[in-house]
């Protein structure tokens, strides 16, 4: 965690596979991720549909199909909880992480795994658990499972080395 806290910025490409109860085949999306410490990140999806998700402090801006949606983290428990988990991991902020999730850490420095389970019952309706895997200060995969069995696996590939 302390290692992650050293990271000031990161860029990565990602591929996300979503498995859903309503679909008989997974959906695949890809794009880029950017992170600037302590609380700015952007997820830009390029395929199959361009959209972007920007978190700036407490404010989220979502853009899809030419529509822009701005709201505060506190407004939407789903996105708020999810984002706080990822952000707290990126920032290496264990205290913030512990506030929202029960945290289980396993593995060694080159092959670690964080399993997060929401503390709030309302949040569990949407996110059953998050599993973040990485080595050193890199994040390699983020898996998300929701209560209805839907599941998303995101593999992350850092394109530029971490700036410290």
């Amino acid at each position: 965690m302390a290692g992650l806290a050293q990271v000031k910025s990161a860029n990565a490409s990602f591929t996300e596979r979503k498995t859903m109860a309503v679909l008989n085949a997974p959906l695949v999306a890809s794009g880029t991720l950017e992170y600037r410490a302590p609380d700015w990140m952007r997820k830009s999806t390029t395929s199959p549909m361009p959209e972007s998700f920007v978190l700036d402090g407490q404010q989220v801006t979502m853009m899809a199909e030419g529509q822009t949606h701005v709201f505060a983290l506190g407004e939407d428990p789903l996105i708020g909880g999810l984002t706080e988990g990822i952000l707290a991991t990126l920032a290496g902020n264990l205290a913030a992480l512990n506030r929202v999730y029960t945290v289980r850490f396993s593995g060694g420095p080159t092959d670690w795994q964080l399993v997060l389970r929401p503390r709030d019952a309302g949040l569990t309706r949407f996110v059953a658990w998050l599993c973040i895997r990485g080595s050193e200060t890199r994040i390699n995969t983020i898996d998300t499972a929701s209560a209805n069995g839907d599941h998303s696996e995101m593999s992350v590939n850092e394109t530029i080395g971490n700036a410290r």
Partner: protein
Amino acid sequence: MRGRFALALWLFGVAACAVLVAHMRLQTDMAAFLPRAAPMAQQALTDQVNNGAASHLILLSVDGAPAPVLAALSRDLAARLRREPAFIDVVNGDDESFAGVRQFVWNNRYLLSPDVTARHFTVAGLHAALENDLGLLGTDMGGLIQPSLPSDPTGALLTLMGQLAPGQGPKLVDGVWIAQDGAMLLVHTAAPGFDIDAQQRDLALIGAAFDQARAAVPGAAAARLRETGPGVFAVRIRDTTKSDVTRLSMLATVGAVGLLLFAYRSPRVLLLGLLPVASGALAAIAAVSLRFGFVHGVTLGFGVTLIGESVDYAIYLFTQTVPGEPAGVTLARIWPTLRLGAATSVVGFSAMLFSSFVGFAQLGLFSITGLIAAACVTRFVLPALVPRGFSAPGSGVLARPLLAVIAHRSWLRLVVAGAVLAGAAALVLHRGGLWDGDLANLSPIPPADQALDQTLRRDLGVPDLRYFVVFRDGGEEQALEASEALAPILQDLVGAGALAGFDVPSATLPSARTQMRRQAALPDDAVLRARFAEAAAGLPFRSGTFDPFFPDVAKARAAPLLTVASLPPALQLRLQSCWCKDADGWTVLAPLHGVTNPAGVATAVARLPGVQFVDLNHESDALLRTFQRDATRLAVFGSFAILVVLLVGLRSSRRVLVVAAPCAAAVIVTAALLTLDGKLSIFMVVGFLLIIAVGSNYCLFFERPEHDAAPRRRAVAAIVLANLCTVSAYGLMSFSHIPVLHDIGKTVAIGTFLSLFFGAVLSTRDAPA
């Protein structure tokens, strides 16, 4: 014999008037103070203010504790208020706040959604919808649409939520609205804002619920509740008025009774002095009630002020009674002057009869009737009731200072001339206009309360409504269809950037015609299933996913059409806020938000017949200007009429000048003094009329040819006593917190005192002093 006949006639009159007054209808809404020929927009706006949806709203803010405590307080308070039948809806941003609307919109999505057209239910239309769903599932919003997807593959709900979204409300913290000024709640009362008793009970309920919530939530001891809204204002204004009027009128009564007791030294005469004004008020109320069918609350309060000079009639009679002389003889002596004084006031006030404001016209009739009745009672009833041998022993002392002024009047004339010149110069040179053009300053709502209202509205994201599109229609269905015709035009204007948003009744409740068209666009069950199977072929949806969709469509095809009554409370409120019903039909007031190009919007909506674009600021400015023009015209016409009456009564233009000059001088200097700390309000014009009405009486008595010193002294004593009563009563009124009372009180107190002084200096004859 004649006295007894007059007494009998008076008693009969009092009885008749009392019967009429007992049956009068009191009205308090402000419509009577709108011009008779008010345009549709102004009429509709007052209706909306008085009876509209907005009048049912109370805005609450809870502050003085950390956010998590405020959130808990908000939840607890909302839960308590939701149990009270006095409140139709309590919204604090939590799930329950919107549950009713959400459920309603979901259940009726196929009647409400503009996306329900035949094209959307063809094979191609369904296929396009499913492909769109697939795209959405892949996005970060996928999780949000997934629960509703099986029942709503065509996305009817999604379009609707965009359309019915409550706008930019405050931020949610811990699931409830928390803004800069604390936790925010919106309470929708069952009672309208003008039902002040009900609103007072509702406020008490809210206060009690808050106290309980504060006791129940840990750490909330220091939290504070603030409330605002039309009903809250109505209650506060009534409280202020009540306390102001009670306190000030008690003080004024004590002052006047003290003065008169000192002068008369007879409680019986003191009470007799009230007969003219009391009889006058009774007759005036009866006359207004007969002529207009109702009496406005303002007329009642104001009218009594206007006929206040009739208290002076008795003073003139009692104070000038010579010891040993029957009151009848005194009266015969002073009657011509008294009559002329009353006549000048009557014609002065009669100008108001021709006002375009019903309220002013009522005031005119009230004061004319009241003064005539009071003068008649003074003339025909009072003398018979005054005890024999009465004279006012204390009045001599009161006259002394003014007699000194009169003795030095030759050089004091220069002082008066200087004051008038200075006053006139100040008025002419006054910069930035003499008249206060800000309607807010006329409002009886204190500035602090107005500011709080603004803040809470901003926090709640309730936009400041300035622009509206207004039209009328005969029936509910026609109004809905007309607003459906208007909506696309407004939508185009939103697209062009001329405005940010709008609300029309049909956005909440589509017309019956539209609902039927949507039902007709839904295919029957077998056709829908066949088309859907074809549309879904080749897409990766698991089979059976959309099973809940088909029964929902089948149910919607047969569902009864939605009416106003089927809407949940929050949507009913929203609907009522954009239209109102009166005897001849419906007036639609579609509010527009974020208008950047008013002229463009006005031109665009004018393409529809009978549709008007309204700028509220412009309308209220126009209203104020009409008010000012009316008031000024009344003052000018009234002054002219007074001059004519004086000319007829005095038969000498020189004498008219001597009587009128001090009054004019008093008005000029008073106006100049009033502009020292601000601008002139339209209420002050009424004050100027009163100065002339009362002041001309003083001058008439000063100008009376009295050849002996003793009657002269008594006349001066009478004027001084009358003036002391007037100045103390109006001076106290100027301490009121209500602008109308404050302005008139200040104007009249200063002006009548100046009239006394100026009259003594300018009107007194140079014959033996």
